[in-house]
């Protein structure tokens, strides 16, 4: 029998195994009021954990950030190996459709508040891959982006500048894209499903 790729992997699972997946509709969590939120935002800005998942050629520019020359650790940024624990997702340039599926999954597994930094012209308008059959042109049609770093490819200094900008946005409380994603959930899902043909995952997998 041919496997139907549109069926969810947990469709016929017994109840006790279903807690490995969660396919409930996400809900927005409003930020707290007053100085508590300001304090938390300060902590969030000074402890950016970057998901170590290279999604495109720009990911090669993230490695020098850990070296003595650029040293992102002095701003409290650190790479983190799992989406559950990280809060910044760096889209490293072009995103092929195959990668986009993983990007969506990883993005949804990150716990709110989460931030996205997109590198390079490919994430803005497709760059040199603008007419390619298997890359997407604008990443913010699929996941919300907090800050862009232009260039092809941006130098590590530019990425640090982008991360510093992201820190500023977080401190000002303007980095609330995780809630925007949930408010416009149907629109994002429709866009994602338009390009991802083998959609064999829950609509929201957190």
């Amino acid at each position: 029998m041919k496997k139907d790729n549109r069926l969810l992997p947990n469709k016929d699972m017994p109840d006790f195994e279903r807690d490995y997946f969660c396919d409930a509709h996400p809900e927005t969590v409003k930020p707290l009021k007053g100085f508590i939120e300001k304090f938390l935002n300060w902590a969030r800005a000074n402890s950016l954990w970057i998901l170590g998942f290279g999604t495109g050629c720009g990911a090669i520019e993230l490695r020098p950030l850990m070296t003595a020359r650029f040293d992102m650790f002095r701003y409290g940024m650190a790479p983190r190996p799992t989406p559950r624990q990280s809060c910044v997702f760096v889209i490293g340039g072009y995103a092929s459709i195959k990668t986009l599926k993983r990007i969506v999954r990883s993005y949804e597994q990150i716990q709110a508040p989460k931030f996205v930094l997109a590198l390079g012209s490919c994430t803005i308008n497709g760059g040199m891959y603008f007419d390619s059959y298997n890359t997407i042109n604008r990443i913010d049609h699929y996941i919300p982006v907090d800050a862009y770093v232009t260039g092809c490819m941006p130098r590590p200094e530019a990425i640090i500048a982008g991360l510093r900008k992201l820190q500023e946005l977080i401190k000002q409380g303007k980095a609330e894209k995780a809630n925007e994603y949930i408010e416009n959930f149907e629109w994002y899902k429709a866009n994602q499903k338009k390009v991802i043909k083998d959609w064999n995952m829950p609509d929201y997998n957190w």
Partner: protein
Amino acid sequence: MDTPLVLKILYSLISLAVITIWGLSLGGIVRKIYARVQGRIGPPFWQPFIDIIKTYGKRTAVTHGIMFFLGPVFRIAGGIGTYLFIPAILGSTIFSNFSVSGDVLLVMYFIFFGQLGMALGAGESGHPYSAIGVARGLAQMTAFEVPFALSIIAIVIQYHTLNITTIVLAQQGSILNWTLFTNPLATIAALIALLGMNMHNPFSVVLAPQEIPIGPPTEFHGSYLALMQTNRGIFNAAKLVLYMNLFFGGATNIFALIIKTFSIYMISVVVGVSFPRFRTDQSIKFFLFVPTLIALLAIIILVL
């Protein structure tokens, strides 16, 4: 010694807060030292505190079942339990904790307890890397418990007591009364076991960054992770305080405590930056051979 229980609980909370702050700062200071050695500026030493505030401040969380909740709770219970039955500062009312109620065997049990709870919690998260990390962690822990337990037995034979306060009291007077000098073999074996306990580099196969992403805590996030980060500070400092009491003559004031725990911690840091990582089977073979023989020798010499 007739302090009312309420006052004693209050003292223990103060002592716990102090040791948490010191344990976390210790982690931050070591990260700073690493950075300076590598020619970087490095994170500020209060970075662990910011990280903990941030992880507590996460807005959403996922659960994978009851044990997933209880794993980090057991972990921090193990850390706090280890600390609360050790006299941190000799003769101090605030920092003597509940050391009269427990002995070194209870402390050893608590060191093991947190890891077991964590194994159950990580197992329920269902992530394959968690399972690999847990299997490695338990195997390695069983191995380094052997030299550790043997050297504790050597000390117990030497001082004829299980009570940590009595062991510390016996080491007072001169630096030559420390177990380090009266029983060097047991100290060496226990310090090698400490390398395994601290999971610094030759024995870092459990968390194994870059290999299995982060091992047992792969699925833990938000408050779960923050609990584990807090515990890392408490547990680390508690182990160092235990070693200071058993082998390095204890501390009579807070400055001695800070200097001694820092120095003991630097042993595993220096070893950590100097050596590459062992595989699990290599580290088990290592622990069950040289340090175990040294600890056995220490016991044999004492009995003869």
